[in-house]
């Protein structure tokens, strides 16, 4: 079976989260591997969040501002 990575994304409400919404409105498609946590700003990102994500076995962490 092909490896399906588990990706956790932290998306800024005003930038990437909004971009992701607009990708939806435009019905673009992309791989269904990511799960999203909305934050208000990438400035909220704490190194511990990324470490925690790998600790629960994320294969990749994407931070989008």
């Amino acid at each position, binding site marked *: 079976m092909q490896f399906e*990575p588990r990706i956790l994304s932290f998306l800024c409400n005003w930038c990437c989260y*909004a971009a992701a919404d607009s*990708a939806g409105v435009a019905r673009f498609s992309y791989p269904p591997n990511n799960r999203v946590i909305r934050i208000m700003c*990438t*400035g909220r990102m704490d190194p511990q969040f990324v*470490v925690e994500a790998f600790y629960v076995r994320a294969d990749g962490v*994407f931070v989008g501002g």
Partner: protein
Amino acid sequence: MGECHYQSGNYEALVMAETVRRILDTVGINRERFTIDWASAAEGPRFVKLLTEFTEKIKTMGPLGEAEGLDWETLKFRLEAARNLCKNMQFRAQYGNLAKEIKKLGDYSPENISQAIEKKLVPQIRKRIFEAELKELIAQGPQAVEVLREKTGATEEEIGAILETLKKKEKK
């Protein structure tokens, strides 16, 4: 960049990102598993591109640990040390003060951030993570340096130095 809704929040994120990369280096996770990028509200297609590329990259890389040649037990052990590092008050203060210093000087170029972190944070990251790991390992009984190196990913010199300090502390 610089178009952040919150003025400078994303600059702070650059410092965070570089710190994370150094932590990943220390625990032996491929730093490419972490990425930070930007897309404005209007850039749906850009977001799609970024995420698709990232997913592809991770797909080629393979599962966490496996691709790094680390069994999950070892990786988990190291990540536990990293988790503690991230919650450690002294380390957080050092991290916060570094962010404050970079902000004051206003140079958010990747080179500058990388240099500052290399100088001020990396020694702390490595020392604290390895120290925590070694403490834990030694508590399980005497271990060969080879094993310690394998379990922690630290160099022989680093292990030596940390064991020294641990001994001193014990004596006190």
